């Protein structure tokens, strides 16, 4: 059986063509993919920073000053400059003097993930820490993207990298350090694009530190503000376990 013709190809009234076409080109906000990659544990710290510096093909060729300027466009100011500078320290180990970037696993500092993995972290949710990847994205035409879009993308990519870093600390069993990082993140990015992720990580970090009451308070915020977020089941479980304990 042959398919019907699409309605827009079959001479419908103009008004209907306009309605259907308006939806065909709709795209999800860019933060949806960023958040999803965080949740999947596939966002790479280095490639994020490379993207934040304008998507230059060979990372070692990125001028630090240019990177600083770009990150400042993103509204990150001194923090962003510091972030890029820190990331550049890693990147410079990957390739200097214009040589091709070295595969990430051979140059990046391994996290202490295996030394004290947190048993509380669920799999398949927000649990996976981001993996390293120093090969940058293909170059983007500098003038192809409007300035305000570049600004937004840069800020979001930086935030993404910070969430990934907090995640790595949590998985390494360092809940205290993860909490400090999340606090700094919130101080520098207001409002944060990734509040649900921050709340979830904070809840996990508090649990790791044994601060049950505060963790439950955060869980309550997650359930109330983000009832459909992927982390809500974990928050509800925590609140339910609290209710069970009270009943006993």
């Amino acid at each position, binding site marked *: 059986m042959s398919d019907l013709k699409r309605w827009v190809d079959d001479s419908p009234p103009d008004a209907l063509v306009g309605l*259907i076409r308006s939806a065909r080109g709709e795209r*999800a906000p860019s933060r949806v993919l960023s958040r999803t990659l965080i949740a999947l544990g*596939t966002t790479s*710290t280095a490639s994020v920073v490379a993207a934040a510096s304008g998507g230059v093909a060979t990372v070692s060729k990125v001028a630090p000053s240019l990177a600083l300027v770009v990150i400042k466009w993103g509204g990150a100011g001194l923090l962003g400059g510091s972030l890029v500078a820190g990331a550049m320290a890693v990147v410079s180990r990957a390739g200097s003097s214009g040589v091709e970037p070295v595969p990430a696993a051979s140059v*990046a500092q391994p996290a202490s*993930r295996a030394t004290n993995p947190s048993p509380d972290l669920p799999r398949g949710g927000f649990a996976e820490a981001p993996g390293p990847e120093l090969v940058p994205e293909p170059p983007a035409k500098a003038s192809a993207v409007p300035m305000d879009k570049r600004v937004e993308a840069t800020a979001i990519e930086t935030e993404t990298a910070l969430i990934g870093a907090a995640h790595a600390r949590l998985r390494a069993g360092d809940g205290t350090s993860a909490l400090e990082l999340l606090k700094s993140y919130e101080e520098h990015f207001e409002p944060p694009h990734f509040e649900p992720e921050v709340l979830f990580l904070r809840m996990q970090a508090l649990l790791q530190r044994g601060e049950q009451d505060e963790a439950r308070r955060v869980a309550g915020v997650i359930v109330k503000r983000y009832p459909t977020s992927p982390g809500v089941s974990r928050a509800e479980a925590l609140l339910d376990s609290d209710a069970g304990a009270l009943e006993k």
Partner: protein
Amino acid sequence: MEAPAGIGSTTSLSTALTEAPTDTDPPVVEQRDLARAFARAHIDFAWRVARRLGLGPEDAEDIAQQAMLIASQKLENVFPGSERAFLFRTVANLASKVHRTRRRHGEVPEDAAGELTDHGANPEELLEQRRARATLDDILRALPHELRAAFVLFEIEGLSQREIAAALGIPTGTAASRLRRAREEFTRIAVLRGVLPGPLERRT
């Protein structure tokens, strides 16, 4: 280059960025790559479907994300060519749960028009697109669910009748008849809403 020191928390932030964790387990890395590629390829589809199934922009974000997480755990069971059918079923299930929850709590749906996401268009065009999408969603909400699903997948997302049949778990012939009925209903509702002229207006 070392990160500037002595600027409080920013130092720990920049240090954190250099803590690139490693995962040397090849199957895990491969699975991650697949999941990432899948998300990049299909996140817009999942989000759009969630929107057309009546979810607000924020709920649609959450559902699209959840659908990708579910898909990442079941990729080996998703046959090539049936990715969108799989995603549609997943998104539809998740969306129906959200709708149930919202109804139970008596909540009003989020702003159905959503945000302006089409970069590159001028403000007037963006506004017009937003209005058109709001009108479209208004009409879609009035369609029976099974007709709405067929309509969205065929007319907006461009799936074939075979893919739609797989997504909805119905024979291909049934998919075709639903599409015809969906068009009739869509036109009828559009006339009622004043989007299209009625029979009398057309005669004059």
